[in-house]
């Protein structure tokens, strides 16, 4: 159900009470002449965790990169349709401020080759946070949020690349959280991690519930079921990715409306 977002709500969301939702309307993406996905309409509910599932190559990641307009970096890429952040078209927003509001976590942990501290400070400064005390406070806050503070507080000047894979991914999450985003896009955030780190990151994602609007791509159906409120299944049909079914997690997993969904979640296809 979509409610028009009032200005009051919009402002409230900026203080973190009620994060903005996102909505894709008839979104299609082409790489040159090849269609990655077609006619996807999907609402990502405010404060919820939405999981995108589906086999490889069905356009999940491409879909994700449209939402923060990262797809525009690929020269041959053409996007049609409309994406709303709250009630505003993302094309009408300044791309820098859009990406501040819509953070992203990549599949492979990708901290910058800077110190742990600088990894969070650099984007903050770029977005106009200059005061030393404020930066220190935010760095500590977000590192605590991702459970990394006690592990790194004595070596904030150490290279971020010396952290373990799981720690790196948590640092990347902290870096994204430092910008106080409304929405977080995650592209298989656990798939490059060992099972224990993966469980830690998964718990972190769960802890974001209600505070951020989360859209997470995952290949792990059990994970989708554990962490998500809503699920959307992408599938390749007619040589392009399509949204087959979406809805609350219980509904999609227990009484799927579509035969392909039923087959996929039961492990018979995909």
């Amino acid at each position, binding site marked *: 159900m979509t409610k028009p977002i009032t200005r009051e709500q919009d402002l409230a969301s900026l203080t973190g009470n009620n994060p903005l939702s996102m909505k894709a309307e008839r979104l299609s993406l082409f790489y040159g002449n090849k269609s990655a996905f077609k006619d996807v309409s999907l609402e990502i509910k405010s404060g919820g965790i939405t999981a995108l599932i589906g086999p490889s190559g069905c356009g999940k990641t491409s879909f994700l990169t449209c939402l923060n307009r990262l797809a525009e970096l690929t020269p041959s890429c053409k996007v049609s349709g409309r994406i709303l952040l709250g009630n505003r078209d993302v094309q009408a927003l300044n791309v820098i401020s859009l990406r501040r509001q819509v953070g992203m976590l*990549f599949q492979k942990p990708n901290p*910058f080759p800077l110190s742990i501290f600088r990894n969070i400070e*650099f*984007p903050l400064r*770029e*977005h106009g946070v200059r005061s030393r005390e404020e930066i220190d406070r935010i760095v500590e806050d977000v590192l605590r949020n991702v459970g990394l503070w006690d592990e790194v507080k004595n070596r904030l000047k150490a290279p*971020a690349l010396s952290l373990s894979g799981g720690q790196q991914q948590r640092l*990347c999450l902290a870096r994204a959280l430092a910008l106080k985003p409304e929405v977080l896009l995650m592209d298989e955030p656990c798939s490059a991690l060992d099972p224990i780190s993966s469980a830690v990151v998964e718990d972190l994602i769960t802890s974001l519930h209600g505070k951020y609007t989360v859209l997470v791509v995952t290949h792990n159906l059990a994970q989708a079921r554990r962490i998500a409120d809503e699920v959307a299944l992408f599938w390749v049909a007619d040589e392009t990715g399509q949204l087959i079914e979406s809805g609350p997690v219980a509904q999609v997993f227990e009484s799927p409306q579509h035969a392909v969904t039923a087959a996929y979640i039961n492990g018979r296809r995909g």
Partner: protein
Amino acid sequence: MSKNSPTPGQEDELQLTSTLKRAVTRSLPLWISSLQPAELLPTVILWAVATVVTGALLWLLSDVFWHGTGQISWEFLTTSPSNAGRDGGIAPIVVSTSLIVGVCMAVSVPLGLGTAVLLAEFASNSSGLGQLVRLSLDVLAGVPSIVFGLFGNAFFCKTLGLGFSILSGGLTLACMVLPILIRSTQEGFRAVPEDYRRCAAALGISRTAILWELLLPAAMPGVTVGLLLGLGRALSETAALIFTSGYVDRMPESLFDSGRALSIHIYDLAMNVSGGEPHAYATALVLVGFLVLINGTTSWLAERFRQSKIFVL
């Protein structure tokens, strides 16, 4: 007894070979003894090739050292040449060379970095303009220096009216150095993982900041290689400078004066002045020292810039 087990006679033989092997193994360095026989020949060939190359270079350098060291003195470095260079020193020539290289670098580094950034970060690989520029640069990098000299003479000396001057020479060298500098800087940028760019873009960081804080430091090894190759080419250039900066061996008073570069001085002493050889060797030694000094400083500065920005693991 299974059919694979050795007979008593063969056992002795095996023992003998293994004893032999052990003896040989002990007498050779570990890395050779651990090689398979099939790897031995290629290894020897590779090492021989490397030795020949290094040897040739060492020979050349030691020759220059051998003949040049005796001539070098404080006086040689601080006085003007006299008697066509047979006597006196090379002070004005060192100054002219520094000025020519200075002009060359002051022009080519900003232009080169700018073009490389444009080609690597802003022009897509498939765009027509990008491809055209890349192709032109590769062609230019292979053009003989005498052609650059003629171009410099026609354009800088005559068309722009700069005459035979340090400025003309420096600018001509800049034209020669640019293709090398641009191409290797561009390779440096290309070696930076695409992840940094996407990730920084996803954080809403502006392209200028990404460039300055991450990409340029990470691409620094490529930039350094370009600078060193370029500097080497500029310092050792003779043909292009004869037509542009000329070979007046007086102390230059401004960039518009003609000035003789070290390499031209060497050429002149070795080819045109009988009895000039001792000072030719000494000048060559100074040139080599100059090159080592500039290269060392450049690498050090580049590395410091890189490490002040990013961690290198």
